């Protein structure tokens, strides 16, 4: 078959238009998914057991990794910031410098990234497998909304556990900085914590708190969405899992920047 030259010339445009449409379509579905999930989250009946189970899945089982990464992040910061500050002779500010970087930035972001890697990927895989083995369809034909059973408890658990994980990360991280700064490098304990009290505001803590809540929503939203819209077979689940982790991580960092620049 031969095509008229005009049609041939328009073909790239056609493809461009189609891919633009499919992107808009995907964004639309992504947004609708969150709205439906929030509707299921905010209206009774609530699935308490599923919620408790998700808290365990997302939060409790991430404790160890949060402890480990929190401690080492704090220790690395303690060391590097001490080295930097000592060039200006202002080691006394180690405490607030460590605390502010952790509370405002690293705590929420790293905790969210760690939970994404540990629990977000598992969440996508679990829901993806339920999709390809028709368990989600089974819920649907029982006239039970899968959003209510699978997605809403996860999002709610994300909102609850992410701030708690972040708080834990912050505390452990500050203690890690203390270990290096005070115990190893010989700063006085009074200076480390005293200066911290002077310079860290409630505002800084609230910033970290709201960041962590929004990360909780982002991660559970992306990961459940990817599981719900998984492709075919084991390969589809594998791809969805990877995409969920990559997309969550990128969104965490992008959102972190915008959030931080709007709320100082």
């Amino acid at each position, binding site marked *: 078959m031969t095509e008229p030259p005009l049609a041939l010339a328009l073909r790239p445009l056609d493809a461009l238009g189609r891919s633009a449409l499919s992107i808009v379509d995907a964004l639309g579905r992504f947004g609708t998914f969150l709205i439906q999930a929030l509707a299921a989250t905010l209206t009774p009946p609530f699935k308490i057991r599923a919620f408790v189970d998700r808290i365990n899945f997302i939060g409790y089982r991430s404790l160890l990794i949060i402890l480990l990464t929190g401690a080492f992040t704090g220790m690395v910061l303690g060391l590097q910031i001490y080295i930097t500050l000592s060039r200006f002779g202002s080691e006394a500010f180690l405490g607030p410098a460590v605390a502010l970087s952790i509370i405002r930035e690293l705590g929420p972001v790293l905790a969210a990234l760690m939970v994404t890697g540990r629990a977000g990927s598992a969440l996508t895989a*679990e829901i993806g497998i339920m999709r390809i083995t028709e368990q989600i*369809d*089974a819920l*649907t034909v029982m006239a039970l909304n899968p959003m209510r059973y699978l997605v809403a408890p996860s999002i709610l658990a994300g909102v609850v556990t992410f701030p708690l994980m972040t708080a834990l990360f912050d505390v452990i991280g500050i203690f890690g900085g203390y270990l290096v700064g005070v115990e190893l490098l010989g700063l006085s304990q009074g200076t480390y914590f005293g200066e911290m009290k002077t310079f860290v505001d409630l505002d800084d803590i609230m910033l970290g708190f709201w960041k962590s809540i929004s990360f909780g929503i982002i991660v559970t939203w992306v990961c459940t969405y990817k599981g719900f819209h998984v492709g075919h077979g084991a390969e589809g689940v594998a791809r969805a899992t990877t995409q969920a982790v990559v997309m969550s991580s990128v969104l965490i960092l992008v959102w972190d920047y915008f959030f931080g620049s709007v709320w100082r």
Partner: protein
Amino acid sequence: MITVEGLTKSFGRQPVLRQLDLEVPTGSVTVIIGRSGGGKSVFLKHLVGLLHPDAGRVLVDGAEITRLRGRALDAVRRRYGVVFQGGALFDSMTCWDNVAFPLREKLRLRRAEVGKRVETALAQVGLEGVGGKNPAEISGGMRKRVAIARALVTEPEIVFFDEPTTGLDPILVNTIHRLIQGLHRKLGFTAVMVSHEIPEIFEIADTVAMLHEGRIVEVGTPAAIQASANPVVRQFIRGEPGNAEGH
């Protein structure tokens, strides 16, 4: 009564259902037979509202479920029991909880009542005592029977079976068929069943419908189907390989 009119569905360029028409009278057992890959599961998924047709419609007692969404669709589905081809058991729960799930969540029965009904349902499919196991820890045939128990435990008005007995041994095939027959007499549900169990299903079917190349090419009583002059039907029920192989 379930009425299917002109149901048409393609996946990409592959047409699966082409203008399919069928009527399933209330209280009857209709068995769909046809070649593997012929679209029987796709057809059932349209009846339960999991797939949406490109054209045509499905009416359940006058409600056009191919158009319904949300609550209205759920109101119809509440009358359903569905056995998926792969069982579709919840693998995070024990078999017992799987059967109890629709009773707790869909019918919201009390704990004691749930316990009683689950025990009965598991006993009916010959699975007393395996309730505590996870679906991953039991055989394929056992999973199938748990799925049947889960679908029937709510005593639904309309039941869809997608190959409920495939993979079971001959004794179990007859046990399950008898169970379905017995429950059908007791509860009077409408059943649409996809099955490859020829000739066993002729004993429990009121109507047999042959799906071929996206349409129902022949409908009739088991006797009529067995005596059919249609070469496609004759060949299929006798299991003869031949020119129908490549359509």
